[in-house]
């Protein structure tokens, strides 16, 4: 007898429902001896391509279908709208579950029904709210038949369908009427019976069988599978709870312990139950199931063309003509335009490239991409090719990119070659702020029906899994949040290992038995898809049949979005173009606009000479915060050692600064050879050619190809294949066995071959595509040039578009160090974004209009409790010789010289309205449009801010200039207005507006009487202290504007003898010193030893301080490093370059704790107590556990290093750390960094 076929199967791509991935389901079906398997995920075809690939690999026939919510026709309005959308990236979706009463149908594509299935899914998403697709019987009727009425889809009416619900409710009349309606609407409709051994399941199934017989419709048996194994139902329960936002309780759960992929024998048992032992009915049921499967089996290659070699039909855009001559003539024209007509090399290379492109039938792809890049440039958007596509001469000649591959020695084989499977990928960088404009333009040109963005699946990782499980287990939300954030960004399955391995977690309250179940379950969610999101750059450009090839839903921003990810899209033969928004391009565009506005000069950035000494001097001194690609602590150290002086040096620098090269120790030999400490070594003189540019060290992929080619003579295309294989140990072995004899045949002696192989073995997999690096180096140089010569404008761009890793307050510190003034928010001067203001005079003096110009007077009113935990008394004994009060100069006091500092003098940055927490775009629009304002009432009336926003603006001094206010000084000033008086007045204005006193609509700029409805007496409330002002700035703006926070601790820091950053270079190597500062960044990069090393960067207002915490000290320091914001650390000075110093940390303390101890009365507190604490020898605890991940060439790295992609650093706009700490993101925490662990008070 033919095998049973599962027609109703949900994989993990049924979000928060299924638990098994398509390949595992297919493998299980194959193990059961089944020859066909369906995948019918909920709400979409997210997993279908992977299902078809897996079926093809296992030799099964694939069936594709979908499980959709069914609604009645007249029920178009959304019902039961779910409360709140959860999820971190915002692009969240659920299944719109309406509890047990939800109706669903399963729809299968018949053998020729793939197109209609895609269109049906698209229509379902179009009909529903985003993330809540549904179909009606009418929609199904419309899609279920082809042009001449032939059936294309099969509709399965199961126990969850309207028919099934009626049958379960014993409403036979209704069930019959529904069945008749279905039969009239859809040509191929069958009844689906299922039995999960739940109470009455078998009865319902028997009833439905009776209905099918009554109607003369076929009935099929399914298991509505959602698991691979019975035990997976626990995960299913957790997902049910997470999906429904309900605690785990039998009431909310589906009975799913039987909903696994049962064997044919088990299904025969189910059939027997359902048929009540009637053998012939049973046989008929199974035979009908089989017949449906047979008419739905799909041809895998038709849907996934890349399964065959050469690939099946690709789906290229319509370009209105034969693409082959079009591309040829465009390239010919390019040869002329680029002045390469007479170059034999160029002509030969062009002919070779076109030959491959035409044989792969890809001409239309290049023509289409060229049309799109033309269009983007025509819109005035900065646009550059990136990645391997820069290696193709065709791309250069067709005008897609501006990099001449011949000039830079770039190879096309890295991009497209005979032996390379798959479609080439052209990546284009545009200004991030214009990326969506570019998408819209592409949509406009090709029409919505032919364009879709690519999606990506966000999967469960440790933090998200803990969140969902914690909620399901009924833990309070704030506790769930704190627990989740305590973990670094690791995989969910590492949770319990991390608790044991990492000292900061091991000694926290998290190692509590009560949380054991939460963690155990969270681990089980590891890697399951959680929600779908828009891919950051992929755009599909297809033809009129695109909607027959991929289902499309709407993204958060309302773009049409394919349900396929980038891999699926390629497998499905669809053309993709990556249009990546690059924030640095926007930042630089903003800078250029500001320069023009303030100085009246329009700079042509691409025309700026690439050999500016001042720019390279700045880079060599490591002053690169804010610059593209070279601002991280590690890069600052590397540029200081490498001392780049040319664009080529920058290309090498960028290529070297990657985990592979750093760990394989490519850096040291390169630096030694570069600086002449060591002679470059070459395995053979023939390798001089490819390796000379990097002193004998393999840095680029292109060099790997050339080395392989030189040694074996295999040609670059084969060499590229070999290079790709070097990624895995097995591949390396295979390449070795191929390489050694071939090189021997070419006449190289065994020692040379062995030496050359060692080079490939060690570095081959880690090289960097030179085309990538070349594409990066240009904006790197340009950003550095802007920073050096137009510091304020450049930093305005950086602050506005946030291109880098550092939060605003760090950029602001850098601005101060460069001599750029920082001007407070001012309702009459601030703009939408960061703006540059010219300081009067060209001297280094503070800007004339400085809001906090004087040194504050002595302290008073001690004992005031402050959440910053700094008392106003701190201000008293502060050193008078340091001009901390100045917005302009706080960082560069003590004699700034041109080299280390003030190249930004003469300009200042104005805090913009958009920096205010919670301000809406519409409010910003009104605030800018209404300028100037004459009073708080005027501002309130015409800018119409919300009350909290108005209060925040007053709190950070937005009205100080108007009223001549200044925080600090005597707190009580009867008769003189204070910020707090104004805040009270905002409250009065709000109350009178609410009471209807305010003039409606008409916004004549008059002093409204409401300002006096509740009269606020000037000086009635005390002025803010300086500490309070800074605290407000941190809370409202996320940065300390008026002064650096560390300034509040100067007295204590001096008392304990802390060394300032600017004096570090004067410390002798090996000295043990104390340093202090504000945390700027923590990173745990992959390092060669396989340790988890924590790099901490502090800032003490005179410069950055880089510290390294090795595992030996992490037992007593890790929790403090991750959990504090202001730190004091003890470390040993290590000179790493002529101008570079870093510290090997021995111990560290939370400065806030030290401060509190210092203030406490003796004997507990006081300076001696602080000194005693600092001198204590730390207890040696356990180190960091976890087995390092080991690579074939001996390269090891800690499982807790920053391996994965960096977390969305700027998604976390609100850093909800300690309740007592400011609520904005104040430092950079890499993916391997843990969060604070002290919040859990159990």
């Amino acid at each position, binding site marked *: 007898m033919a095998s049973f076929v599962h027609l109703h199967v949900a994989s993990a791509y049924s979000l928060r429902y299924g638990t098994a991935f398509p390949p595992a389901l297919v493998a299980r079906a194959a193990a059961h001896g089944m020859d066909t398997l369906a995948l019918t995920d909920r709400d979409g075809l997210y997993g279908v391509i992977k299902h078809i690939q897996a079926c093809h690999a296992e030799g099964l026939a694939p069936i594709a279908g979908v499980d959709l919510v069914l609604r009645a026709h007249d029920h178009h309005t959304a019902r039961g709208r779910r409360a709140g959308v959860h999820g971190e990236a915002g692009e969240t979706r659920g299944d719109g579950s309406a509890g047990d009463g939800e109706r669903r149908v399963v729809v299968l594509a018949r053998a020729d029904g793939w197109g209609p299935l895609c269109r049906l899914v698209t229509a379902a998403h179009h009909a529903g709210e985003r993330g809540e697709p549904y179909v009606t019987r009418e929609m199904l009727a419309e899609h279920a038949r082809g042009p001449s009425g032939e059936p294309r889809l099969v509709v399965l009416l199961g126990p969850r369908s309207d028919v099934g619900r009626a049958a379960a409710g014993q409403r036979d009349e209704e069930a019959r009427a529904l069945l008749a309606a279905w039969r009239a609407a859809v040509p191929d409709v069958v009844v689906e019976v299922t039995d999960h*051994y739940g109470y*009455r399941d078998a009865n319902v199934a028997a009833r439905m069988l009776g209905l099918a017989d009554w109607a003369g419709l076929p009935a099929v048996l399914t298991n509505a599978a959602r698991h691979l194994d019975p035990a997976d139902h626990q995960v299913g329960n957790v997902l049910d709870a997470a999906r429904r936002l309900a605690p785990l309780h039998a009431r909310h759960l589906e*009975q*799913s312990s*039987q909903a696994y992929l049962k064997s044919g024998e088990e299904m025969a*048992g189910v059939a027997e139950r359902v048929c009540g032992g009637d053998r012939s009915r049973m046989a008929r049921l199974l035979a009908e199931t089989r017949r449906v499967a047979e008419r739905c089996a799909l041809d895998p290659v038709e849907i996934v063309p890349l399964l065959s070699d050469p690939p099946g039909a690709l789906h290229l855009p319509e370009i209105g003509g034969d693409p082959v001559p079009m591309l040829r003539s465009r390239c010919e024209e390019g040869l002329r335009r680029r002045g390469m007509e007479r170059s034999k090399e160029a002509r030969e290379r062009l002919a070779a490239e076109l030959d491959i492109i035409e044989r792969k039938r890809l001409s239309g792809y290049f023509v289409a991409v060229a049309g799109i890049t033309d269009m983007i440039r025509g819109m005035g958007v900065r646009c550059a090719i990136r990645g391997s596509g820069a290696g193709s001469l065709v791309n250069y000649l067709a005008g897609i990119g501006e990099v001449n591959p011949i000039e830079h020695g770039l190879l096309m084989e890295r991009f497209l070659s005979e032996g390379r499977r798959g479609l080439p990928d052209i990546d284009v960088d545009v200004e991030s702020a214009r990326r969506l404009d570019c998408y819209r333009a592409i949509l406009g040109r090709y029409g919505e029906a032919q364009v879709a963005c690519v999606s990506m699946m966000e999967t469960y990782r440790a933090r998200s899994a803990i969140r969902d499980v914690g909620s399901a287990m009924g833990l309070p939300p704030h506790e769930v949040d704190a627990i989740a954030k305590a973990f670094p960004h690791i995989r969910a399955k590492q949770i319990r290992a991390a608790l044991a391995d990492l000292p900061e977690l091991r000694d926290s309250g998290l190692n509590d038995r009560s949380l054991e*179940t939460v963690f155990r379950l969270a681990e089980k969610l590891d890697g399951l898809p959680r929600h779908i999101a828009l891919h950051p750059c992929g755009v599909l450009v297809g033809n009129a049949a695109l909607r027959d090839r991929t289902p499309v839903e709407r993204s958060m921003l309302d773009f049409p979005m394919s349900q396929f990810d980038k891999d699926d899209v390629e497998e499905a033969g669809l053309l993709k173009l990556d249009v990546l928004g690059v924030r640095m391009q926007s930042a630089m565009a903003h800078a250029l606009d500001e320069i023009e506005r303030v100085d009246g000069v329009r700079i042509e950035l691409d025309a700026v000479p690439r050999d500016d000494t001042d720019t390279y001097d700045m880079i060599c001194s490591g002053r690169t915060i804010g610059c593209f690609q070279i601002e991280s602590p590690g890069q600052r150290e590397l540029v200081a050692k490498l001392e780049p002086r040319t664009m080529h040096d920058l290309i090498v620098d960028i290529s070297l600064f990657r985990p592979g090269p750093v760990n394989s120790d490519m850096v040291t030999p390169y630096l030694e050879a570069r600086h002449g400490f060591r002679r470059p070594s070459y395995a053979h003189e023939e390798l001089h050619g490819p390796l000379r540019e990097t002193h004998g060290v393999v840095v680029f992929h292109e060099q790997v190809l050339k080395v392989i080619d030189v040694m074996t003579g295999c040609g670059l295309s084969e060499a590229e294949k070999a290079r790709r294989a070097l990624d895995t140990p097995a591949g390396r072995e295979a390449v070795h066995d191929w390489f050694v004899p071939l090189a021997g045949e070419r006449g190289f002696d065994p020692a040379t071959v062995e030496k050359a192989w060692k080079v490939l073995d060690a570095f081959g997999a880690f090289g960097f595509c030179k085309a990538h690096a070349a594409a990066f180096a240009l904006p790197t140089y340009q950003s550095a040039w802007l920073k050096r010569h137009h510091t304020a404008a450049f930093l305005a761009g950086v602050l506005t578009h946030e291109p880098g890793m550092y939060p605003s307050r760090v950029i602001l510190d850098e601005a101060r160090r460069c001599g750029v003034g920082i001007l407070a928010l001012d309702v009459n001067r601030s703009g939408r974004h960061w703006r540059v203001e010219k300081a009067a005079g060209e001297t280094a003096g503070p800007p004339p209009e400085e809001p906090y110009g004087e040194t504050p007077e002595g302290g008073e009113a001690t004992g005031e409790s402050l959440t910053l935990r700094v008392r106003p008394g701190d201000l008293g004994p502060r050193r008078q010789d340091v001009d901390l009060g100045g917005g302009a100069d706080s960082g560069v006091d003590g004699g700034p010289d041109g080299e280390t500092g003030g190249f930004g003098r003469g300009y200042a940055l104005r805090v913009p309205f958009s920096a205010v927490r919670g301000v809406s775009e519409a409010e910003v629009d009104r605030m800018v449009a209404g300028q100037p304002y004459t009073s708080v009432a005027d501002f309130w009336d015409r800018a119409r801010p919300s009350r909290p926003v108005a209060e925040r603006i007053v709190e950070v001094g937005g009205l100080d200039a108007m009223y001549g206010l200044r925080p600090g000084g005597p707190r009580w000033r009867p008769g003189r207005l204070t910020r707090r008086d104004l805040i009270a007045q905002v409250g009065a204005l709000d109350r009178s507006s609410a009471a209807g006193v305010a003039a409606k609509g008409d916004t004549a700029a008059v002093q409204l009487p409401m300002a006096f409805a509740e009269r606020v007496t000037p000086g009635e409330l005390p002025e803010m202290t300086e500490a309070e002002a800074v605290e407000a700035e941190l809370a409202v703006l996320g940065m300390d504007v008026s002064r650096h926070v560390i300034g509040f601790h100067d007295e204590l820091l001096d008392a304990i003898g802390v060394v300032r950053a600017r004096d570090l270079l004067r410390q002798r190597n090996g000295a043990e010193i104390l340093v202090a500062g504000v945390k700027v960044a923590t990173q745990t990069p992959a390092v060669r030893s396989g340790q988890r090393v924590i790099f901490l960067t502090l800032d003490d207002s005179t410069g950055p301080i880089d510290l390294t915490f090795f595992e030996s000290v992490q037992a007593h320091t890790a929790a403090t490093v991750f959990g504090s914001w202001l730190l004091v650390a003890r470390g040993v000075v290590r000179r790493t370059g002529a101008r570079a110093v870093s510290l090997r940390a021995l111990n560290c303390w939370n400065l806030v704790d030290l401060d509190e101890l210092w203030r406490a009365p003796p004997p507990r507190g006081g300076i001696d107590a602080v000194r005693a604490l600092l001198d204590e020898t730390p207890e040696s605890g356990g180190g960091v556990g976890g087995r390092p991940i080991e690579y074939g060439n001996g390269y090891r790295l800690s499982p807790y290093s920053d391996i994965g992609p960096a977390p969305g650093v700027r998604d976390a706009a609100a850093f909800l750390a300690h309740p007592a700490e400011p609520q904005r993101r104040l430092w950079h925490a890499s993916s391997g960094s843990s969060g604070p662990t002290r919040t859990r008070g159990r």
Partner: protein
Amino acid sequence: MGGRSVLSRLYGDPIEVWVRDGRPAQFVWRDRLYAIRQVQDHWVVAREWWKTSDTDPGERRFWRVEAGMGPGVGTYELRFDTASRGWLLLRAWD
């Protein structure tokens, strides 16, 4: 349904059950042997595993059967616990 008495009695007595072809065939309750004539219903309920510390507390399988001792026939509900491997007679309509 099927003339069965509406009223049932709850017991919860441990019993011994003989299983044939994956279904109960006969059982001994209070020292009497009952032959199962027909399975009327069978369903399975997963345990509320999150309330226990066991990794897999298993499931409970319920059987409602028609069984008799001699000429008298009654309906009985049996329960098998996969974790403890034990049978209970839950209730009886007799």
